C-alpha cells in the first residue's frame, strides 16, 4: 500500500480543478463551464461536457463505460487505484525536491567516485539543445521527411563515435555500457556462430554480470580470465583461447584504471578467429590510442560522460562501433545518408532489414527505443569539446590522476597497487584490514564531505583493502589535497589497534 502524504494546512483536496481551459476557449460555452469542470480530476485532457456528449453521440453510445464493454465485468477493477491523491505541480515538485535533498549528490560533496560513471561538467549548450521540444518530443524517425533533425544528429553522432573508437561504422546508440557489452556478444554469435565468450576480470563488474545474464538466453558460455596485478593476465588469456571462442572482452582502461595491452589481446583473439570486443572510456581517447586502431573488432562503452548527467545511473547511453564487414550484424538503428527525389541531401534509418520491426525473429537485436536524446547530448558535447578539447581534457586527466596518486601514496601506509599507466582512475591500497574497514574509512570521509572512491572489495575479494579513486577535470588541486587530508584522518582510527599496545607499554 502507498502511504498518502498528509495534506498540508488540513486542506481537503479530493479533486484538482483542471488548470487550463485551452480547447474550451474556442467554444462559446467555455467560460460557463470552466470553473465547474465535470472531469475535475483531469490534468492533461481537455474535453468539455458538451464536447463529451457530442462525441458520445457521434460514436452512438450512451456513456464512456459502454466503450469498455469488451472487458469482462469480473476483471473490472471497480474501485479507484490506491495511489496518493492527485497533487498540484507545486506540491509534487516539493515532494521530489525533498527526496532530492535526502541524497548526497556531487554538488554536495567532493567526488572521487567513478567506477563507470563520472562527474564531468555538462556545458549549458547541451541542455539548451536537448531541451528543445523538436528533439525532445518526437518518436523514432519513422517518417524521415519530417525527422531530418534527429536523423542528421544520429549521423553526426555515429561519425563522432567512429572517430573516437577508430572503427569505421557505429550505430545510433544502445541502452548503456553494460548492455552494449551484451549486445556485442550477440553480434559475435551472429557473426561466427561460436558458443564461448572469454571475459577479462578487468571488465566492469556490471558488464560482466549483464553478460552472464544475457549469455543464458544466447546459449553461450562465459569464461572469466583473472587479472595479473592490475591488468589482464596475457598467459591465462592465451590458455583460455580455442576455436570455440566467439569473442574476447576487455576494457580500456580497465575497471582498476590500468591501461591494457590491447594489441597483444587482439593478437590472441585473432589467432583463434575470435572477435575482440573492447569496452572503452571515451574521455580517455584524446590521449589513449583508439582500440579500433589496435585490432579491436567491436568497440563499445558507457557514454554517460559525453554530456550526460549521473542521474543515479540512468538513462545514459551505450555506444557501439564495429568493423565495416560486421555492419549487417549490428544492433539497433543506423542513420545513413541519401538524397530526396529533388536531389537534396538527407538522411534515413538504413539497413532496417536487420531490425525487429522488419526482420522480427531473425533481427540482429530487439532494440526499438534506445537512447536517441542521450546520443544528441553526446554529439553536442563532443562538438563543444572539439578536436583540441578532447586532447586537452585527456592530458588534464593524466596530470591530475598522476598528482592524486602521488599525493595519496605519501600518506602513512597508503600505496598505489602498482606503477602501471593510468589515465583517470587508479587503485589505492589502504593500510586496513578488509572491506569492512575500507567502508568505515569511506563513511568517515563522506561525513567530512569527501567521497574518496569505490571500495574494490565489493567485487574483488583479493583487493579487499583497496579503493578505486577517479578524477575528472572538475577536481582541483585543492580538492585532491583535501582528499589526502580527509583520508589520512579517516584512516587514523583503523591504525589504533596497532598503536594501542605500544601506548599500554
Amino acid at each position: 500500500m502507498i502511504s498518502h502524504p498528509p495534506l498540508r494546512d488540513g486542506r481537503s483536496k479530493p479533486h484538482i480543478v483542471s488548470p487550463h481551459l485551452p480547447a474550451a476557449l474556442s467554444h462559446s460555452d467555455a467560460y460557463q463551464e470552466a470553473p465547474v469542470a465535470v472531469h475535475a480530476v483531469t490534468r492533461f485532457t481537455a474535453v468539455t461536457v458538451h464536447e463529451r456528449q457530442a462525441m458520445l453521440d457521434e460514436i452512438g453510445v450512451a456513456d464512456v463505460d459502454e466503450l469498455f464493454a469488451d472487458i469482462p465485468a469480473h476483471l473490472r477493477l471497480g474501485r479507484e487505484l490506491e495511489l496518493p491523491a492527485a497533487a498540484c505541480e507545486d506540491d509534487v515538485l516539493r515532494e521530489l525536491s525533498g527526496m532530492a535533498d535526502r541524497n548526497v549528490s556531487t554538488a554536495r560533496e567532493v567526488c572521487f567516485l567513478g567506477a563507470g560513471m563520472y562527474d564531468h561538467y555538462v556545458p549549458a549548450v547541451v541542455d539548451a539543445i536537448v531541451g528543445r521540444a523538436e528533439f525532445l518530443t518526437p518518436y523514432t524517425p519513422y517518417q524521415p521527411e519530417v525527422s531530418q533533425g534527429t536523423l542528421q544528429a544520429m549521423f553526426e553522432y555515429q561519425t563522432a563515435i567512429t572517430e573516437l573508437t577508430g572503427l569505421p561504422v557505429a550505430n545510433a546508440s544502445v541502452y548503456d555500457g553494460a548492455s552494449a557489452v551484451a549486445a556485442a556478444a550477440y553480434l559475435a554469435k551472429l557473426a561466427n556462430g561460436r558458443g564461448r565468450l572469454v571475459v577479462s576480470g578487468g571488465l566492469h563488474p556490471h558488464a560482466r554480470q549483464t553478460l552472464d545474464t544475457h549469455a543464458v538466453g544466447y546459449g553461450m558460455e562465459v569464461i572469466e580470465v583473472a587479472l595479473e596485478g592490475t591488468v589482464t593476465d596475457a598467459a591465462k588469456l592465451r590458455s583460455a583461447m580455442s576455436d570455440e571462442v566467439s569473442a574476447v572482452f576487455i576494457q580500456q582502461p580497465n575497471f582498476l584504471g590500468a591501461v591494457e595491452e590491447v594489441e597483444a589481446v587482439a593478437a590472441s583473439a585473432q589467432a583463434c578467429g575470435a572477435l575482440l570486443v573492447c569496452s572503452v572510456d571515451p574521455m580517455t581517447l584524446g590521449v589513449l590510442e583508439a582500440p579500433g586502431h589496435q585490432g579491436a573488432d567491436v568497440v563499445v562503452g558507457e557514454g554517460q560522460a559525453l554530456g550526460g548527467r549521473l542521474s543515479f545511473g540512468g538513462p545514459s547511453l551505450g555506444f557501439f562501433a564495429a568493423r565495416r564487414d560486421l555492419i549487417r550484424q549490428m544492433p539497433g538503428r543506423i542513420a545513413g545518408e541519401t538524397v530526396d527525389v529533388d536531389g537534396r541531401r538527407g538522411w534515413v534509418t538504413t539497413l532496417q532489414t536487420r531490425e525487429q520491426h522488419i526482420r522480427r525473429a531473425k533481427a540482429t537485436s530487439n532494440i526499438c527505443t534506445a537512447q536517441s536524446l542521450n546520443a544528441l547530448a553526446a554529439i553536442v558535447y563532443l562538438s563543444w569539446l572539439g578536436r583540441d578539447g578532447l586532447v586537452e581534457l585527456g592530458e588534464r586527466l593524466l596530470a591530475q590522476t598522476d598528482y592524486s596518486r602521488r599525493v595519496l601514496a605519501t600518506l602513512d601506509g597508503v600505496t598505489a597497487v602498482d606503477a602501471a599507466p593510468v589515465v583517470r582512475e587508479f587503485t589505492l591500497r589502504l593500510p586496513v584490514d578488509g572491506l569492512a574497514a575500507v567502508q568505515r574509512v569511506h563513511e568517515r570521509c563522506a561525513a567530512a564531505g569527501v567521497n574518496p572512491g569505490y571500495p574494490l572489495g565489493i567485487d574483488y575479494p583479493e583487493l579487499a583493502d583497496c579503493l578505486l579513486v577517479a578524477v575528472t577535470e572538475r577536481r582541483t588541486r585543492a580538492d585532491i589535497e583535501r582528499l589526502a587530508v580527509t583520508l589520512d584522518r579517516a584512516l587514523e582510527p583503523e591504525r589504533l589497534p596497532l598503536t594501542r599496545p605500544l601506548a599500554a607499554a
Partner: protein
Amino acid sequence: MTADRFPTKTIFEKSRPGIRAAALPVADVSSPTSGELLPARYRRAQPARLPSVSEPEIVRHYTRMSKRNFDLDSGFYPLGSCTMKHPPKLRERVLSLDGHAALHPLQSPAQAQGALELMWKVERALAEITGLPHVCLQPAAGAQGELAGLLLTRAYHTARGDRRSVVLTPQTAHGTNPATITMAGYELVTIAVNADGDMDLDDLRAKLTGDVACLMLTNPSTLGLFERNIDTIRDLVHAAGATLYYDGANLNAIMGICRPGDMGFDIVHLNLHKSFGQPHGGGGPGAGPIAVSDRIAEYLPNPRIVRRDDDRRGTVYDLSDDAPASIGRLRGFHGPYAIAASAYAYIRLLGGAGLRDASETAVLNANYLLARLTTLGVTEYLPAAYDRTCMHEFVLSGVPMRRRLGISTLDLAKRLLDYGFHPPTIYFPLLVDEALLIEPTETETKETLDAFADAIAEILQEAAADPTIAQTAPHTTPVRRLDEVRAARELTVTQRW
C-alpha cells in the same frame, strides 16, 4: 518546420582549425610531462577528427536542425502503439534538481535515501496499477523488459527441472516480441487471430504443448481490441504450465479500469515513455520496468530495493543483492532512474482518478475519431479492419483506397505531412493489408481530432481528382521522399572526409 534553401552541412563540415567552444578549468597541478605519464606506445597517433566549432555555431547548427523535425509539442502525432501523449513540463524541473541529476549511482545507500525511497514508491505505484506485487525498474526500454520477462520465464521453468523451448505470440505482436524470443533462446510459434480480431483459441489449443514456456500477449492487442477470451487463454496457458506475459505497450487503454495481474498475467513490462507521460526523445531514452507475480518474484534481477523500519533511524531503504535465484543484472547500475523520477511526478499529478480519466479519454478520443471518419465517408475507402468498439487505437485498411483512388497507405501518410499532421503507424500490424494504426491519445482536443479527420477526407477527395498529388507527396517538408535504396546500397553511415 522550414525547408532550407541551402545545402545541408554537417557539424564536421563547419569545422575550422583553431576554433573551439570549450574552456576547461585552469590547470593547477604540477606533474611530470605527459610523455612520462603515458608511454608512447599507448598514445593516440592521430587525434579524433571532432569538429572545431564555436558555441554560437553549435547553437545555430542544432537549432536549425531541430526545425527540420516534426514534434509532438507542435502538432498531432497519432502514431499507433507509441502513445504520443503530452509529456508534462514538470519533467524539466524534476530533472534539473541536483539531488537527482548529480547523484552518483554507486553512492552508498545511506547517502541516497531519497533516490531509493523514490524508486520504492514508483515500484509500489506500478504494482498497484498492474495488480502485480513485485516490480523492478532496471529495464531501459520495453524490449529490454521483454527480454527480462523471458529470462525470468526460463529461470522459473529451470528451477522446476522443466526444459521448454517454445514461446507463443499472436500474429499481431510487436516486432520486438519475436526478436526477443530468439535472443532469449526460444523458438517462436505464432498463433492465428480470428475474423473478430480475437486470438484463435483452436490454434492456441493445438500449439499449446508441454514444450511451451510462455505466451506473450498485448492486451488490448495491436489491433486496438480488447482480447475478450482472456479468461480462457489464461486458463489454457496456466494449465499447460506456461507463463503468461503482458506487453504493456497498450496499457494506456486500461489504467484504473482493469489490471494485467487480475487478468492472470505473470509478468508485465510497462513503457514509462508511453503510458506515463515521458517524452520519446526522438527514439529514447525510455524505461521498461517489469512487474511480476509471487511465483516469479524470486528470479527478479538484482539488486532490489528493500525497505525496513529501523528502531534508531526510522524507515530505511537499502539495495539488496542476496536473491540467490535471481536472473542477475540486466544492465549497469539501477536503470533509467531519472525517467522513473519523472514518471513518479506524472503519477502524483494525476492520482488514481486522473490515470483512469486518461485511459477513458484515450478510448473516447479513439472511438470518436473512428466515428468521425465514418461520418465523413472516409471509412468507405479506409474501412476499419474490425467492426468493433476499439480501445485507445484502431486499425484502418487502405486496400479500397488503393484500388479505387490509386493511392497507397504510404501516399496518404506522406500527404498528411503536408497537412501538418504526423501520420499514424503504417503497414503495422502486418495482419492487415495497407494498415494504418491510429492512436490519438487522451491529451488531444476534439478540435484537433476533427481537423485530422477533415484532412484525411480532403486528401481522399483530392486523390479522386488527381492521385499524383498524394503519390508524389510530401511537397512542403524540409526534404521530400528519400531514396532508401540508395542509402542501403551506399551505406554512408559516417561523414565522408
